[in-house]
């Protein structure tokens, strides 16, 4: 293979365009296909369906760890929230980033194992933190509402985002957002 063929500095085959724009297109050899055992002129390939199933089994096998992993993440969120709450408005930047990141991790975790109600509140918290930057004292109430509700969801082991309990919790958070935003 000749790597230099793709290097514009080593070639002199450019055409002068009329628009004066400098556009280059690099058509690369598909090394990945070759590496995977495919033929460059062949059609699309596939992965062993058993391997794909095995990859999903990894998630199923980890499902029993979800409660303890969630508790760990919620405790970390609590800790960061304690720190952020004790600080003056507009000085919470570092904590805001950490908290939004933790909320995002909780969303990932809950989504992975199908806990849609926890995923919903974690995403809501993350988005609220990122949008508001927690720069007003009233925002404390909204974050606290999220954190409280997420602990309830954890303790009650709620999974679906439908049903009377889930709807009631969503309503509580929505009211806090509406009142204090």
């Amino acid at each position: 293979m000749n790597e230099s063929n793709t290097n514009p500095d080593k070639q002199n085959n450019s055409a002068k365009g009329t628009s004066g724009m400098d556009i280059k297109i690099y058509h690369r050899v598909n090394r990945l296909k070759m590496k995977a055992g495919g033929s460059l002129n062949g059609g699309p390939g596939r992965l062993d369906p058993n391997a794909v199933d095995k990859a999903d089994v990894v998630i199923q096998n980890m499902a029993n760890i979800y409660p303890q992993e969630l508790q760990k993440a919620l405790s970390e969120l609590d800790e960061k929230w304690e720190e952020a709450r004790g600080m003056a408005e507009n000085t919470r930047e570092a904590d805001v980033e950490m908290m939004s990141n933790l909320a995002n991790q909780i969303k990932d975790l809950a989504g992975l194992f199908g806990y849609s109600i926890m995923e919903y509140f974690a995403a809501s918290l993350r988005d609220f933190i990122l949008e508001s930057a927690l720069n007003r004292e009233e925002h404390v109430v909204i974050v606290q509402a999220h954190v409280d509700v997420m602990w309830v969801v954890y303790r009650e082991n709620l999974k679906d985002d439908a049903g009377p309990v889930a709807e009631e919790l969503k309503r509580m958070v929505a009211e806090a957002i509406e009142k204090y935003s």
Partner: protein
Amino acid sequence: MDLDFDEIDENKGKDKGEEAEKPSPSPSLPDKKTEKTEKADTTYSLKNFTILLVDDYEFMRNIITSMLRALGIGNILVCSSGKEAINLLTITEASQRNAAVKGIDLIIADWLMPDGSGQDLIKWVRNHKSDKIHFTPIMMISAYASKKTIIAARDFGANESMVKPVSGKKLSKHILSIIDNPRPFVKTPDFFGPDRRRKEKPFLGEDKRTMNTDDIEAHHERV
């Protein structure tokens, strides 16, 4: 929801203003619709692949690593931030001057990370001077399913974008897409990355593109 570049392309066809800045269609772009009807004739082996996985969340990193192993990936390197990944890529690139050291075939990176985001990492990779780095395929994984995030990933030069939660099916779909549907790389004054259009599509109305084929310098790598 698994919104990805395909869905974005479907929506983008209606936005002719954006198309106006694009180079003329590349003759090598595959027709995805045709491909879908083709029967997969080879079962790939990924044992010689080296993947760099970048995710700040350790639990998720461990799960994705195990899933990649289950899919048969031979070598998996892991980093917990964009910064760490940049350091590793720098060392790997320098080591590759020794022919025995293998390069990284694919980067899988989380979008939102506190210490060097996925966005920072793509920018660094696509702006790197070395062919061994800047052509590396990148798959972004993100908890954000918004069109805005998917478009941003594409416009920074990601090859694929996968919305969490991860699954074996999703991972394999995006890895296969990178193997089977590589797009030519396009370099314009403000973009370097895989061609942002994944398929040729007719459009309604006036053709607002200002370039013609004379404006495009094509480089064909040979085997």
